[in-house]
């Protein structure tokens, strides 16, 4: 039981990270029916920008503790949001009226562009987040040992998701986002500036991805220019698992995937971690093709 709870808490931190990245995929898909293949790279960019602030700009030399984590998140999220905004303006908006395939190819191109840009700037070798940013405290609950960093990561990801949920469900602009994802034409008839909503999605999604990037840097220490591929694929899986286009679905799918992976690694084999994740996806899609919380088909009268 104790072992199980231990693995569960390990999985929650990673699951929170998957969920944050998955939200970017699912929100963009929700409004544009497009898979933003460059999203994994924006996540990696977040990790690198965190590194830049910590090491290149030397933040870790004169500060430590939770305050640093907060600054890292703000810094990376802000800059990656801007990158996301321009990504949409340059790579997707001009192709909005052309066929779906053109946008997909553009997305793949943008992904390669970002990956190569990071490789040029930061090099091909893995970079290391300096240790000791957070005190290596381990909290013990019911005999389960949880490092402070994991608690902080899970709490931050949950906080960000709560903020997003509140924004989407309790603000006028959030309602407009949902309206645009349901019916763009009708949304325009309400006087909603659809382009502005799409820009907003490309600010929010990448910002959440960037937060996840910083978290991975803090949790594992190492970051690489191609880390977006693996995490992107996992988070994309999580988004489909939860029902693509569905925001609570991405949250649930991400956390579930993190937990399943951790449990699978512990009880089956760590080498099978990825296989277990994708096998779960296949299983769920067989029994629920729209994903766990996928849109119940709305009656179109």
């Amino acid at each position, binding site marked *: 039981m104790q072992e199980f709870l231990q693995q569960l808490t390990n999985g929650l931190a990673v699951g929170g990270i998957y969920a944050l990245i998955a939200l970017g995929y699912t929100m963009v898909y929700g409004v544009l029916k497009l898979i933003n293949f460059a999203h994994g790279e924006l996540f990696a960019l977040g990790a690198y920008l965190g590194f830049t602030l910590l090491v290149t700009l030397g933040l870790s030399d004169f500060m430590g503790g939770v305050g640093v984590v907060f600054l890292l998140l703000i810094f990376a999220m802000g800059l990656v949001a801007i990158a996301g905004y321009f990504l949409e303006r340059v790579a997707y908006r001009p192709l909005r009226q052309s066929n779906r395939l053109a946008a997909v190819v553009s997305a793949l191109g943008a992904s390669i562009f970002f990956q190569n840009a990071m490789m040029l700037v930061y090099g091909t070798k893995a970079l290391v987040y300096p240790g000791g940013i957070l005190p290596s405290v381990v909290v013990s609950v019911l005999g389960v040992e949880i490092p402070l960093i994991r608690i902080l990561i899970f709490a931050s990801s949950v906080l960000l998701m709560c903020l997003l949920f509140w924004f989407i469900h309790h603000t006028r602009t959030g309602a407009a986002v949902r309206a645009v994802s349901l019916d763009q034409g009708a949304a325009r008839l309400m*006087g909603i*500036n659809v382009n502005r909503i799409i820009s907003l999605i490309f600010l929010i999604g990448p910002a959440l991805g960037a937060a996840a990037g910083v978290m991975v840097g803090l949790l594992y220490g190492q970051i690489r220019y191609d880390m977006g591929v693996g995490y992107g694929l996992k988070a994309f899986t999580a988004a489909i698992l939860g029902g693509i286009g569905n925001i609570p679905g991405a949250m649930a799918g991400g956390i579930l995937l993190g937990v399943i992976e951790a449990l699978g690694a512990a009880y089956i084999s760590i080498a099978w971690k990825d296989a277990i994740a994708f096998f779960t996806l296949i299983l769920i899609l067989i029994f629920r093709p729209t994903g766990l919380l996928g849109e119940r088909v709305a009656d179109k009268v």
Partner: protein
Amino acid sequence: MPESAYLELRDLRVSHGSVEALRGISLSVNQGEIVALLGANGAGKTTTLSTISGLLRPSAGAILFEGRPLHTLPSHEIVRRGITQAPEGRRIFALLSVRENLELGAFTRRDRAGAAATLDWIFELFPRLRERLNQLAGTLSGGEQQMLSIGRALMGAPKVLLLDEPSLGLAPILARAIFQSVREVNAAGVTVILVEQNARAALQLASRGYVLEVGRIALADSASALLRNPDVQIAYLGNGE
């Protein structure tokens, strides 16, 4: 120079790809009236309304509203200028609540008190909406969805309301209720352009009507004259002798 009407379409041409859906439509609407657009499927009625709302761009011609060009504005600016639409097929946001649908109708408004007053008025017009306020819009019946679609368009405090087939698929008693509310909306000072397959009901409501045939205006006359017109009677009123 002739004085321009409240809302005026001048030789409007619109294409869907290579198909020209509107082949030079000219019509005018005076402030405070109900104008009916009649015609068979594919005549260009919905295209006309979509173009006024800015969802489609004309390839030639112009739309003037209160003397100023409308056809160059994006759709959200057109709503701001005071033209809203309850589109064909209702297009309510099925997975949002009735309340959220209505609030989205007031998306461009900043006067909260005014929006609250409009909401009260809509509840007077359609008391059913008040009862169903927190329900998902997709769970409403067809008639209620139509009320929501019209109510949502009214939430924008329009000067001109565009209605596309409001009675389509409704039981006669519900259709009559909808027409009655259109009359009340108009009495409150809202100019209405009504596209309707029930030509008789539309002409009984309207002061004037236009008959569209394959992208052109075939007839333009007062509603009473159109009701008496033998061609209209045979083609649209179903009493060919």
